[in-house]
């Protein structure tokens, strides 16, 4: 297979993460009453961005031929 599945996974979660983080920064605090006052969009968005970066890094490492075939 030519396509490394970590590439679309990384890209998709980066997109989700950026959307959520951005929304978390600009949305009003009142909508977070239901989530116990925590700005879950901001925090979970950052988690997803980090996850996306890890996936892209793994895919990139393999593309340069240094990763294992595993």
């Amino acid at each position, binding site marked *: 297979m030519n396509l490394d*599945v970590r590439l679309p*996974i990384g890209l*998709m979660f980066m997109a989700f993460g950026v959307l959520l983080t951005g*929304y978390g920064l600009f*949305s009003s605090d009142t909508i977070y009453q239901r989530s116990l006052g925590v700005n879950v969009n901001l925090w979970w968005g950052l988690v997803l961005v980090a996850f996306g970066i890890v996936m892209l890094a793994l895919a990139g490492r393999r593309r340069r031929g240094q990763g294992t075939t595993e």
Partner: protein
Amino acid sequence: MSCTLATGQLRALMQRIELGAIDYAILIVYFAFVLGIGWIVRRSVRNSDDFFLSGRSIPAWVAGLAFLSANLGAQEVIGMAASGAKYGIMTSHFYWIGAIPAMVFVGIFMMPFYYGSRARSVPEYLKLRFDEKTRGFNAATFAVMTVFSSGISMYALAKLLELVLGWSFHMSVLLSAVIVLCYVFLGGLTSAIYNEVLQFFLIVTGFLPLVLIGLRDAGGWAGLKAQLATVATNAGYAPGVWSESWRHLDAPGANPMGVEWFGMVMGLGFVLSFGYWCTDFLVVQRAMAANSMIAARRTPVLAAIPKMLFPALVILPGMIAIGMHVTRGGLLPATADGTPNYNLAIPALLAHYLPSGLLGLGLTALMASFMSGMAGNVTAFNTVWTYDIYQSYLRPGRSDRHYLRMGHAATVFGILASVAAAYATTRFNNIMDMLQLVFAFVNAPLFATFLLGMFWRRATGHGAFFGLLTGTVVAAIHHGLTLPRGTPAGLKGAFLGAVLHTYPSEMAQNFWTAIFAWTACFVATIGISLATRRTKSDADLQGLVYALTPRQPDDRLPWFKRPAMLGAIVLGLTLLLNLIFW
């Protein structure tokens, strides 16, 4: 009837939720990626082997996550949360005594035969090992079952979208059917597997915040246990029934599942779970697509590692929902007979806790789970249909191109049939119970056939076929003569007129149906095999039977790549989980 009532009530509950632009944006990004993967992968489909088996080129970890995800349909997410609410942590036995040991077993002991025989499907293995009629029987029943399961997935998705988004049932069915159709049609199994991996991560990241917030709101595990103690005492049980997995299994009357330890371990653990995970082509197909024998054997074992933690994602939300429902009042809408509608545990929690943004992610995760379940069934269906029914009985000896075209046509047909099944799925309150019923009839005897086929060279084709038939008939008779307490005769039992035994619950009835079916098949297969002549010599059975297959040496691999070593670690950790939540 009960469904429409619940719909009305939940809609009232959910009116506070409005999906914002951000939620739709997440949903659209997801759809774009799903279709994009199908579009990119389509170039790698050159022959039928690529379309149905991914050209046997998938790495173990990808196949493993797909192995897990293909089973993450409506049954898993909605059904497990529903059971978590209805029965509490005892539902975890579906994983800790059921799925995990079975997955380790199929990886270590059965994959050498599935992968090594170069069979392209589970029914084809049965043909190589036994004979044509055994394959035909398995292929036909399996084809019907996959369409049925796929229909349930679609039904659950459409119902949910109707509740949460106010989309029409018909439009949701159409939308999900078209998207799954597109990506399976374009990229075949590879496309399905890649999307399943995507969906796996989406399901984890979509549900984890829900569980974390819910648990925090309940006051952690200790707080949740206190709430669940109220749930249990209100229902007339000991306080720990909803939060302790083994302590209340000494008698069927002591727990809401109505099962005692023997029915649990034998019925659910040994017969149903091994029957499903070891013989169901839907999951086995993912391991068959792996890029080497050792990868194929590692696939189910690697899948077992996240699988053992899945109760936290799919059962815990149900427990949180029922705890809140009982102690704070009214989270779950009632059904017509006054019991809470357990199937709505996850949607109700999503609506309750998640703000716009994460709500979109949670909903997307739900949709992803339904679609992966549907796609899993469709890819298994088109393979069995094309190889085991069409190529074997209808049009043998055509070109590979012809069968590839048939695979595309079968994908369309499979989805149309699932749509029909979706409209037929409105009878049971708990989808899980219904699926268990179907599995009990078809799958429970099957595991006896495979066990004897793989480990006893004397088992014959006649023995296997008539043994299977006996097992399935015994399952139907047992179901037809027994009834769960408090239910009318009909689909749920006693359709043969008499009631010989009344079980405390549907779950208990299903487990025992499975035990009877398995035992009948096991005994009948041995008896008939001994009475009939062997048609396959030892040479024919090489690579198909344990005693006639050379062992796979794996001692040159590092320890973390050896299937047996990984299996032992997985079983050890599962035992630990059982003890912690004893």
